[in-house]
């Protein structure tokens, strides 16, 4: 590595941006793959892997990818919840890698909800 110039600081920051955002718990969007036993049996791992691959391929750095337990609608698994910053979460059901890629492209990156795969907007209230 040659000597750094000041501009290089920005380049390094950009390269590490995903890590920085993730560790600060910040990002422009968050995708939660439901990974309960039902989800995994229905193929949630495949959904997660698809997302991981796409993130790397598309160099997506500002989206948080996380897992959570069963969403309660086991018959419609695999499911994922997409939450854009400052917007209501949307649950997608009966996902396949193809559908997930479309959600990523249209909703996460494009900002348009893919209504055909969406179950409903919002999440249950936790009291």
């Amino acid at each position, binding site marked *: *590595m*040659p*000597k*750094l*110039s*000041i501009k290089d*600081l920005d380049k*390094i*920051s950009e*390269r*590490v*941006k*995903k*890590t*920085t*955002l*993730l*560790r*600060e*718990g*910040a*990002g422009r969007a*968050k995708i*939660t*793959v*439901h*990974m*309960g*036993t039902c989800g*995994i049996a229905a193929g949630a*791992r495949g959904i*997660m892997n698809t997302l*991981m691959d796409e*993130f*790397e391929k598309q160099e997506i*750095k500002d989206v*948080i*990818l*996380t*897992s*959570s*337990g069963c969403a309660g609608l086991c018959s419609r698994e695999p499911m994922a919840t997409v939450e854009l910053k400052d917007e209501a979460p949307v649950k997608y059901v009966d996902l396949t890698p193809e559908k997930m890629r479309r959600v990523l492209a249209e909703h996460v990156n494009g900002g348009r909800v893919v209504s055909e795969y969406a179950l409903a907007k919002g999440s249950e209230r936790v009291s």
Partner: protein
Amino acid sequence: MNEYSSDKYRLHLMLCAGTACVSNKSFKIKVALDEELKKQGLDREVIVVMTGCNGFCAVGPVMTVMPDGIFYHSVTNEIIPHLVEEHFLKGRPVKRLMFTPPTEKIAIPKMMDIGFFSRQTLIALRNRGLIDPEIIDEYIARDGYRALAKALTEMSPEEIITEVKKSGLRGRGGAGFPTGLKWELCRNQPGDSKYIICNADEGDPGAYMDRSIVEADPHSVIEGMLIGARAIGASKGYVYIRAEYPLAMKRLEIALDQAREYGLIGEKIFDTDFSFDISIKQGAGAFVCGEETSLIGSIEGRPPEPRQRPPYPVESGLWGKPTNINNVETWATIPVIIDRGADWFSSIGTQLSKGTKVFSLVGKINNTGLVEVPMGITLREIIYDIGGGIPKGKKFKAIQTGGPSGGCIPASLINLPVDYEKLTEAGSIMGSGGLIVMDEDTCVVDVAKYFIDFTNDESCGKCASCRDGSSELLEILRRISRGDGKEGDLQALEELANAIKDASMCGLGQTLPNPVLSTLKYFEDEYIEHIKYKRCSALVCKGIISSACQHICPISQDVPNYVGLIAQGKFEEAIKVVRKENPLPLICGRVCNTPCEKKCVAGEWDDPIAIRLLKRFLADYEMRHGVVVEEKPKSDKKEKVAIVGSGPAGLTCAHSLALEGYKVTVLESQEIPGGMLSLCIPDFRLPKEVLKYEIDRIKGLGVEIKTNTTVGKDISLNKLKDEYNAVFIAIGAYKGLKMKIPGENTEGVIDAIEFLMDINLGRQVEIGDLVIVVGGGNSAIDAARVARRLGKDTKILYRRTRAEMPAIKSEIEEALNEGVDIQFLAAPINVISSNGRLEAVECIRMELGEMDQSGRRRPVPAEGSEFKVGVDTLILAISQEPDISSLDGNQLNISKWNTLVVDPETLSTNIKGIFAGGDVVTGPNTVTEAMAHGKTAAEMIDKYIKGEKLERKYEVTRPALYVQAVKLTEEETKSLKRPKAQFIPTDRRLKDFAEVELGFTEADAILEAKRCLRCDLEAKEEK
């Protein structure tokens, strides 16, 4: 540098690899996590990042899972498979690894919701736990080296200094000298060759903030030094770090290598004309090296001894060149000031102390750890809101700030805002930021001794004042804590301390007396207690206390020895040991409030020894087996003593005087003797025949008890005084206090003591079906349990929580078992009646409000929370005061609490020959305290009659004999447990007044006695 790879992972497990967590095996956890992630196929998705110290060292190893911010503590290898599957695969955070605050029950999942973290403001520690300290890119990504870029390209050296001056930053190493000013002084020195030094020779016991910063974020220190070097005009810097910090050193070396590789250290940094290099100098860990001139000496290869200042290092430092020294935390703060500006920084803190300060919070505190807080935060916020308070609900006593050079600040100053000035005013210093919390079990003499021992060890020896002065201080303190303190010691301590301050050359000597001076200032009483009264109320100084149980017992029962004899099966010898100090063991074995058990050393990690039940076992054994310990008067004296009142104080006094040979007459106004013991404690706790046995023994010594004889009515006090050689008044405190609320004079509102007396005297008592008792003491509990036995629906209202209830804990438990409904945090405000008949009581809910100076939260009424409870009989058990109306001793001095005023040392009243003790003097108090008064009164009356000077002799506590400890088998060591106290079943209790608690069996008693740690033997060895 390798391509940055952490970006590929969706979950980052930020595992703490600070020194504290490493000692808790965090490296092994990392290996196990990596293996398990691989096994479950998650190694492509989840990465384990080893971070620097996260600060919450008390619960290590700790791990924060990002991006969710879930905080796990006390992570073990065993739980890892479960954790990986549940959380990292299925996304279900694992509750049992989450933090639950000591005072609450619900676990908190997220780090930023935990009080310990959420109340902190991070500047120096801004990157802790968020970056891998061994990867420079992660530092850069969090704005690292931007301040350097700004300083080099946008600011002149003078502007840098102006900015730092404007920020108000003061040196974080201890003295608090303004950093910008120091830089300016150094910059203005002539010459091209200047040095800067980072002082990482952190040596205060219990302080580790510098180590943590270097471990967690070494680049922040390097960047700060670079900026400082630019401002001052230095081209070479040193980090002086002690060799005991291997992890910090390793991370610093890695950081320096990486910075060098990036050209951030070296020639022409960022293509400017600025060049700078940093070397590490290892220190050998001498405390004096924290002093700047000694530190410089050490770098130069000379012995680390301070030299006279001026010239200051900024004028003539390392190798005679201008040298600027700042400590780790100061350097780590610099980049943020340059990056975010002086205005931002100076908006935090107080008028003269700006920004934040890192403290290491240790000692008797729940959340031990490293905290960064804004200047001006109060000690209370640090101790309670961040530190989670004192373990086991004990009382906060004092806090030592600033390490061995600092002072001890008492609990009364808990609301003190923490900044340089306020701490100095309070007699302490900020120092480098050590905070050692002390609870009620900490002895200040011992604390002072500890610190002086430390500084005496660490004194370099150059100045006689420091070298020999600290030795002499230590000798005096050792003497005091051994119980050999002399009058004049305090003055000697103070004079010596001031002399050391004045005559020592460097900070070590100048500040080492601080712990002595500040404890003398705030805790002089405790020193006097050690020197004059031979007491150590914190139960620490072995030479004085022998064992905690014996020292705290008001009648100095030789507990370890009688317990030791029980362990050997020698019951008869054991009861002799008990009887030597205690004429009422059957009673104490049943109703004592057991201060001994509360301070039992075995209770610190297990249950305390069941001292009361062991005593009861012995006393019952004696009574049942007729193995009566014989007692005989020493001689036959003709002098007569009258004792007014036959409660525990009167009986004990009568017993002691009778043994001396005096003719003792006890006058009791009621129809039976025993005072509170017979009148107010119900039979189910203290059966009458048990009391009779003890009273008969005392009568057997020739004591005459005249019942139904009221002094002031049947015989005048003056007459008693004339007829007897001395009089002891111990008439107790029976008069119930009122609540002072409307309606409480209604019929149906009765007094607990009167109620209990009526029951105990077998009088007919009429109470309604709904009974409410108000109060939280033993009388309240007793009255409620009696009401239950009369078949009534019974409630207790108490205005604080169960933890504060003064009644004996096991009795509260049994009251609940018997169906008493206790309403905590409820206070009556109005008694409601109709047609003169009691109907209901209106109450208000209380909340625990602001903490008072002792650190306890005061109950305050919650507005609008009024509620009514129906009631037929309302029993008041608030408190009592003595009723001295019957005594015609109108010449006796009386306090505003209606108690008799006595000389606390001799118990003599203002009238010659009349002594007083027990509740009539102290107000409502315990049986053993009353007995102690009885014993003291007897001793003083004996002296009085003999015409000797009335004075007490105070001695250190010592066992009277040596009892060999029983050796436990390995099996016993593991399996011995305090036996559960046995009670008759609740369904059988409520039918009558039969004694509820059953005693130990012989086998139980021996096993329990074996569990005793025999602290007395330790003292024997030490002496």
